[in-house]
């Protein structure tokens, strides 16, 4: 502590260490937030359902996604990444997950939304198992913090079924 440089170094190091502690505590405080998200997905229309030249099934859907993810936002949230995945079982794979749509929600105000779109990413199967297939549509979300741990969770909506024949 005998010179400016010595004191400045000690101060800066201590300040940065304490900053790390503050950020850790801020991230920990996210555990205490009460989160009650809700979502609904409707399949409005199956646009087409074909077998590709390579032998894989492909289907194009129009979805109506309604969700309220506002309660996921805390003071330590930078953005929420949400995506819709179709999940189903085949004889080859115990679980197939195909991502159909995703969005980045930067602010709480944008987290309550209603959107009607055809699938952003192609719904292609590994094989030709999709005829008459029952599947779940799951809305996954990742809450990305400003500092600290990222939380991820999902809502599973079941009861969807693809037609028995190609269209």
């Amino acid at each position: 502590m005998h010179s400016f440089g010595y004191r400045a170094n000690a101060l800066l190091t201590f300040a940065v260490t304490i900053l790390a502690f503050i950020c850790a505590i801020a991230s920990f405080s996210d555990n205490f937030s009460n989160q009650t998200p809700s979502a609904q997905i409707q399949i409005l229309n199956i646009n087409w359902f074909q077998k590709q030249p390579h032998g894989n099934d492909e289907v194009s859907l129009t979805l109506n996604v309604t969700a309220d993810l506002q309660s996921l936002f805390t003071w330590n949230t930078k953005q929420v990444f949400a995506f819709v995945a179709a999940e189903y079982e085949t004889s080859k794979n115990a679980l197939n997950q195909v991502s159909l749509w995703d969005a980045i929600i930067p602010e709480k105000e944008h987290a309550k939304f209603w959107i009607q779109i055809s699938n952003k990413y192609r719904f292609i199967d590994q094989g030709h198992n999709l005829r008459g297939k029952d599947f779940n549509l799951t809305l996954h979300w990742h809450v990305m913090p400003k500092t600290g741990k990222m939380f991820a969770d999902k809502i599973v909506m079941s009861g969807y079924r693809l037609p028995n024949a190609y269209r």
Partner: protein
Amino acid sequence: MDWQGQKLAEQLMQILLLIAAVVAFVVGYATESFRTMMLIYAGGVVLTTLITIPNWPCFNRHPLKWLDPSEAEKYPKPEVVAVSSKKKSSKK
């Protein structure tokens, strides 16, 4: 700064930074604003810098008593030993 002043400066620095951190976190959490927390903490760091780094007179209340020059002349510094003694020790 003298020794007492240095100790005081170090203690002040640690305490001020801790207080700034606690105040920043509490206000930020209450207002749900991460930005507020960072701004208050940055302000606290700047304030601590202004208080503890410069050589304020309050840190020099117990100045060191250096030896008087006339006293130093009474006790001359010891002389350097001759080089020849080193050769004897290396032969062993």
